[in-house]
């Protein structure tokens, strides 16, 4: 049995696909490219601050002193306090409170202030496009919704997409080559695209849905809704003493030996209702963490239920790792990196197909290559500016992107604009690695910093070499 849609409907879905794609191409491209880089944020953080102590173990008794020192220095301490423990992939400890955020040395003393402005710029670009947080997150989530719409309309408007699953025409017109690239990448990476679209849209769409859910089922009580979905806080009334983190960690090791703790949060710190949440990895689960709760003395209360609670609770706490590919170690991160780049190519080639199809050229033909190839320039350039001057990475990013886009308008020839901006990106990659080495000296030559610097240099050289070879042909 063969399933086919009426040609008129196929045509309408194609129009819908084109229009949704064109309407959101620039935003989708920004979200995708920043998301692809953000997959490696845990390494970029370390590259941005390479001159700090790294260790994989910390004496838990020291953590009690860290918290006690914080309370002594800030008697009116309030809110939540977060202690990140060193772990595989992120061999650093840190302390975050309303008073500030610091890296911790292995002896528990405070190290440098936690600062990775460029990585944070990339994360906030991906999360909320540097718009006010809630609204930005909703805008980005709507991008996820439209990505779902693009996947659906893409399949419905290309009845032959499976028939041509391996087809790739070389030597054909630019439009046919772009079409093959767009369709092949879209069809084979469709499961990834759908996972990314739905999990990405969740974060902001949930903000809209929570209002409906809270008023429909909980009489407008958002706390009750949160408790139902994520589990409610324990009710405690104690005479305030400094929390005993080491006892809680020791108890956790006794009762759940397979749990691998990586953070401790002191909720409502310094108040009679304070308690500890220990977040722990479970290597065989996709959940971000199971949260084990302890009172201020380190006595076990319960777990929130992300490992053994309702299926929904387990699913909701898996969304983050599924979206960012933070499972299965570096191989999965690299897989997400490749698929993320593929998604960027799908986005760009979609617009290129439309541009090549038109019978006229206008301002969009000039702006688009400047924007597309300007984003890598802006990402690398903002890193360089942030590294050298400490100026705002956000401002640097948008300024460089605006300049690159304008360059396209000035040059007015897509191939030249592309060549200039790719060359600029390659040079910036090399310069960035060199400047990083100059600024941080020996610290730039080991561990993750060295790996990233070598990757930057190799990528820069490869891009230049490929461009030279292409020109020779």
């Amino acid at each position, binding site marked *: 049995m063969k399933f086919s849609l009426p040609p008129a409907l196929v045509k309408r879905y194609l129009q819908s696909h084109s229009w949704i794609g064109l309407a959101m191409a620039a935003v989708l491209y920004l979200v995708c490219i920043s998301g692809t880089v953000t997959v490696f944020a845990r390494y970029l953080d370390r590259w941005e601050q390479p001159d700090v102590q790294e260790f994989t173990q910390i004496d838990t008794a020291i953590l009690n002193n860290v918290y006690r020192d914080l309370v002594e220095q800030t008697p009116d301490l309030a809110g939540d306090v977060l202690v990140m423990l060193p772990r595989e992939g992120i061999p650093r400890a840190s302390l975050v409170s309303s008073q500030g955020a610091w890296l911790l040395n292995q002896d528990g003393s405070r190290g440098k202030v936690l600062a990775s402005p460029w990585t944070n710029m990339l994360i906030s670009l991906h999360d909320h496009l540097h718009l006010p947080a809630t609204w930005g997150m909703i805008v980005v989530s709507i991008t996820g919704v439209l990505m*779902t719409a693009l996947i659906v309309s893409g399949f419905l408007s290309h009845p032959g997409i499976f028939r041509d699953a*391996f087809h790739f025409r070389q030597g054909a017109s630019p439009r046919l080559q772009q079409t093959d690239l767009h369709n092949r990448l879209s069809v084979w990476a469709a499961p*990834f695209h759908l996972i990314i679209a739905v999990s990405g849209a969740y974060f902001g769409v949930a903000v809209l849905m929570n209002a409906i859910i809270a008023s429909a089922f909980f009489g407008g009580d958002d706390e009750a809704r949160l408790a139902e*979905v994520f589990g409610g806080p324990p009710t405690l009334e104690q005479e305030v003493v400094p929390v005993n983190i080491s006892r809680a960690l020791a108890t956790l090791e006794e009762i759940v030996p397979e749990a691998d703790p990586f953070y401790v949060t002191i909720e409502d710190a310094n108040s009679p209702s304070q308690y500890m949440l220990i977040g722990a990895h479970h290597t065989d689960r996709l959940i971000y963490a199971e949260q084990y709760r302890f009172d201020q003395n380190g006595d076990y209360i319960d777990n929130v239920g992300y490992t053994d609670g309702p299926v929904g609770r387990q699913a909701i706490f898996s969304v983050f790792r599924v979206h960012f590919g933070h499972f*299965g170690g570096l191989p999965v991160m690299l897989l997400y990196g490749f698929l993320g780049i593929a998604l960027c190519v799908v986005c760009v080639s979609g617009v290129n197909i439309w541009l090549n199809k038109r019978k006229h050229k206008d301002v969009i033909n000039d702006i688009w290559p400047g924007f597309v190839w300007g984003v890598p320039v802006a990402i690398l350039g903002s890193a360089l500016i942030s590294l050298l001057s400490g100026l705002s990475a956000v401002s640097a990013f948008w300024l460089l992107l605006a300049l690159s886009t304008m360059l396209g308008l000035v040059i007015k020839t897509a191939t030249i604009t592309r060549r200039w901006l790719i060359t600029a990106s390659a040079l910036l990659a090399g310069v960035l690695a060199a400047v990083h080495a100059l600024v941080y000296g020996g610290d730039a030559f080991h561990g993750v910093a060295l790996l990233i610097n070598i990757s930057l240099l190799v990528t820069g050289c490869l891009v230049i070499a490929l461009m030279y070879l292409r020109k020779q042909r």
Partner: protein
Amino acid sequence: MAGVMLLYFRWCRHTASQQWWTVAGWLLIALATLPWTLAHGIEFAVMYAFLVPGILAWVFVGRQWFIATKNQVAKRHDKKPVTEARRPVTEVYQLHHPQRWLVLLLRTAMVLPYAGAVSLLATVALTDLLPLIKNDTLVLALLAGSLVWGIVASWLLAQTSLLRPVAALAVVGLLSALYLFG
């Protein structure tokens, strides 16, 4: 890998008698979840089953590209490559048909929130009808909401006349709101 390879061989030889190659290919891909489950657990296995075949397929797309390039080089001496006829291109250094862009933008700006409001209401209402515990229905609604919104938006944007689809969605939205708040 073997599963994707079977799909590729089936694709290379478009004959109905080799339909079973397709079935066997997909079956092998599905079966790959077993060793992954044993090694990493079911959750990871499902993720790998979704992600890995798409990457492996590029080995064969690349092979196809390589063959096409080789053929192209061979043909280059004999005749011109088969390409689309070049059409004359008019250059206008301003936005072409700005009013058309405005209409399309307005249409999307109206359709998107409308589709969203109806989809989210309907998703919350429909999931609540399922025989699941409260936590599961709420999470299902939260995760499915964007999917439903995307499907409804693409359907609505594919309509030539919006009147009937908009009216139909208004009824769905109204019924959902009545169920949830009535």
